[in-house]
Structures are given as structure tokens and as C-alpha cells.
């Protein structure tokens, strides 16, 4: 019944779009099969850069996220300066739009003409994504760490574990398990945000499609890119759902 309703709604929407006055022109500029074929090799190559940027950024983001979250959960007075840096970092990079971070890193950093700073905007853009998403992921980890009951730390302390050991062997493993679903969501969002690299002239999929569009007055490659992104994110989204459901079942079973 629900499926039938969905089909009907989608069908009506399709009819509305296809019978709209502008449809023939939209169809020609956005859904032209020959342009799709012609642009595909370049777009596919550009999409490789999106995937590469994502694959490079993801592990670095996880690393920064865990480090910042752990630093923020310390209490010793000696670590106060580090904590302060961690707080400023998360506040700053959660506040500034990712697009701005990409622009500032991609165009601002090379302008400094510093020794050793790469000038390739692919690397600068990926670095910007790491900075921006590191702050989000740090907050996700921090929520996970805060969700672990203090009695777990008390138990570890009573066994003679140091604060660091309690974090490493007791708190973090449990916190990580809890935050896997929200983390995967952030990574789906990161996959899409690699498109922001187009703003600093990286020849990734969106920039390539735009380039093609400007020369050929046809925007079908944008739709091709959209399809590629969907194909990339859907499996991860399904996996996230599945994992979330499985964890919920586990928690319920554990709470007998």
C-alpha cells in the first residue's frame, strides 16, 4: 500500500515536470544523451579526484577528531594550553562555512609564499576539508566520550590504570562504537563536499562538468556528476542504516 502510494506520488511529480512549459528546453540542456557520453571520460577522471581527496582526508580527519576530543576531555592543569587550542580550533572551524575554509586555504595559503607549503590546490583543498571536518568529527567523538558512564573510569582507576590507559583501553573503544553511525553520516557529507574543491579550480568532477558546460552550452554533465555522487554515497548510507539498526538491537539485547 505504502509502495503504491510512493509510486503514484512519484508518477504525478514526473508528469508535472515533463508537461511543464520549459521541459523541452530543460531536457535538451540537462538530459542530452550525446553530451553525457561526450563528457563522461573527463567527468569520470575528475570524479577520481573527488574520491582521492575523500580517501586522503578521511583517515586524517579521524586522527584529528580523536586527538582533539581526547585533549578536550583531559582535566589536568598542565594540559590547559592544549585544551584551549582544541576549543579554539573546534569553535573556529565549526563556525566558518566549509566553502570559505576551502577558499582561504586554496587562495590564501599560496599567497603567503611560505617555504614548503604546496601550491597544488588539490592538496590545499583537501587540507581545508580536513581542518573543517576534523572539528565536526572531534565534537562527535567528544559526545561519545561523554556518554560513557563515569563508573567505567572508576573501575579502570580502581584496577590501577592511569588516566591515559583508562581512556585508551576503556573509554575510547566504547565511545567509538557508539559514534560510528553519526561518523558515517559525516563521511557521506564529506564525500559530497569534495565538490567544493571546484571553487579553487581543482579539475574534479563538478569543475570539469562546469568547464564542459561553458564550452558546449550544455549542462548534462552536471546530471552525470550527480548520478556518480549518488552511486558513491548510497552504499555508505545503506551501510550506516544497517549498522545503526544492528547496534540498536544489540543495546536492547544487552539491556535485558
Amino acid at each position, binding site marked *: 500500500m505504502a509502495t503504491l502510494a510512493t509510486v503514484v506520488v512519484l508518477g504525478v511529480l514526473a508528469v508535472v515536470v515533463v508537461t511543464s512549459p520549459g521541459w523541452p528546453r530543460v531536457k535538451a540542456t540537462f538530459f542530452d544523451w550525446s553530451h553525457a557520453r561526450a563528457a563522461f571520460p573527463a567527468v569520470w577522471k575528475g570524479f577520481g579526484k573527488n574520491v582521492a581527496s575523500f580517501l586522503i582526508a578521511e583517515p586524517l580527519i579521524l586522527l584529528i577528531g580523536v586527538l582533539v576530543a581526547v585533549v578536550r576531555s583531559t582535566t589536568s592543569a598542565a594540559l590547559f594550553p592544549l585544551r584551549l587550542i582544541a576549543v579554539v580550533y573546534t569553535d573556529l572551524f565549526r563556525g566558518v562555512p566549509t566553502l570559505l575554509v576551502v577558499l582561504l586555504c586554496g587562495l590564501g595559503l599560496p599567497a603567503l609564499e611560505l617555504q614548503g607549503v604546496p601550491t597544488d590546490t588539490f592538496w590545499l583543498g583537501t587540507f581545508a576539508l580536513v581542518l573543517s571536518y576534523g572539528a565536526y568529527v572531534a565534537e562527535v567523538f567528544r559526545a561519545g566520550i561523554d556518554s560513557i558512564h563515569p563508573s567505567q573510569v*572508576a573501575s579502570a582507576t580502581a584496577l590501577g590504570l592511569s588516566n591515559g590507559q583508562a581512556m585508551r583501553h576503556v573509554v575510547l573503544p566504547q565511545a567509538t562504537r557508539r559514534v560510528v553511525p553519526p561518523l558515517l553520516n559525516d563521511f557521506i557529507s564529506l564525500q559530497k563536499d569534495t565538490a567544493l574543491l571546484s571553487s579553487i579550480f581543482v579539475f574534479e568532477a563538478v569543475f570539469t562538468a562546469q568547464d564542459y558546460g561553458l564550452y558546449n552550452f550544455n549542462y548534462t554533465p552536471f546530471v552525470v556528476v550527480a548520478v556518480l555522487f549518488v552511486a558513491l554515497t548510497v552504499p555508505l548510507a545503506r551501510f550506516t542504516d544497517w549498522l545503526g539498526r544492528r547496534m540498536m538491537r544489540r543495546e536492547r539485547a544487552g539491556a535485558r
Partner: protein
Amino acid sequence: MSDTALLRTENVRKTYGDKVVLRDIDLVVQPHDVVCLIGSSGSGKSTLLRCLDLLEDIDDGSIWFEGQEISDPRVDARAVRRRMGVVFQAYNLFPHLSVLENLTLAPRKVHGVDSTAAEARARELLESFGLADKADEHPDRLSGGQQQRVAMARAIATDPALLLLDEVTAALDPELTGEVLEIMRHLAGEGTTMVLATHEMSFARDVATKVCFLHDGAILEQGTPAEIFESPREERTRQFLRRVLPT
């Protein structure tokens, strides 16, 4: 300290803000003693146990353990905790680790025992606690009584000189308390030195070498089980026993 006491407290005082939770606590624990702390809820039993393990700082007085004043702020609290085992009312097992890993974590990471030796010792303990077949299970697959037995095994896997138990049967269904008390009797029989807060009066009567009645943060009366249960000196003790003992 030149005497043979394993643990001795003198005039221990503990406050939370304005509230005095422990006052004038003088307690002596000799090797192989089983000291039962009894008293109504809120009388300070858990706080006393936490102070002994240095999980809480005391405000005044001193605590001596194995000839060293451990209430001295310069003492390395971790070194002291390495010599004590604690079991909490709510078991507090590590849910992400298997039963075996719960037992081997502290021996490996804190005591530097290699994994093979730690595992062998853990399996031996699980065997003697009737949990041999649970070694590879995760704690949430176990009953409350089994989890509490695992917690006991974990606490003694590091061969502590003193075992602190805080109402370890209080969270269990009545039919499950027996299996945990059985283990405690077994440990007492082996000469394990224990300080425990408990509401199990028959256990205290049978097994304790000393019973302390806490009231409002003070040890109002202490003595052998016979003294406390048969001829209590204090009216408060009599009132408490009338409430908890079936007549």
C-alpha cells in the same frame, strides 16, 4: 608503623561541602581479617571504601597500608590501588571486552604480566569461580550473578593484598545472591583479607572476624560478630539490627 596491621585508619574525616560524611574513623584490619561494614543506607559505608582505595581524598586523619601512610598526598595513588582490589555494587565490567579480557587487562597493562601468563591465571580463576565456559563471552550475555562473579575474579586477578567489596549482592535477585556469597566464603576461607559493606547479616555473622556498625558517618560500635549481633552495646545498633534481622 611497627605493628602487623595491613590497614589502619586514624581519625579519618571526610566531608562533601558542609556535610560531614565520615568522622573519627578508627579501623584496624589485620591480615586475613574479614571486616564487615554494616549500617543503614547513607551511613557512609561506600564513601569509607572509596577513601581506603584513594578514589576520594580525605579531609583529615591518616590511612596506613602495608606500613606506608597512603593518605600522604605525595604517595602515588596508582601504586596503592595496584595492591587493592575493588568490587562495586553495579559490577562495572567493561562491556566491550570479553570476560577473559576483563580479567587480563590490568595484569597486562598495569602489572606487566605477559598475555600468556595473564590468560592462564584468568582461566584458572574463572574455573574456580565456576565460569570456565564463559571466558569468551561478553559480559552482557551473563546473568547478574555471573557478572558479579566475573567482577570478583577481575579484582583478584592482580593478587591484591586487600579486597574491598561494596554491597556486591545488593543489585542481584535474591536467588542469585547465593552464588556470589559462596565465592566470598571461599575467598575468606583461603585467607583473603577483605573489607566489605554488606546487608547480608547472616554472612557477616558466619564469616566476619570483625563487624563495624556505621551510623551517620561514624563507627558507632565494632567487635566480633558475637558481640555485635548477640549483645550490642549501643541502642542505635539494637534498633538497626531489629530492623534488618528476621525475628
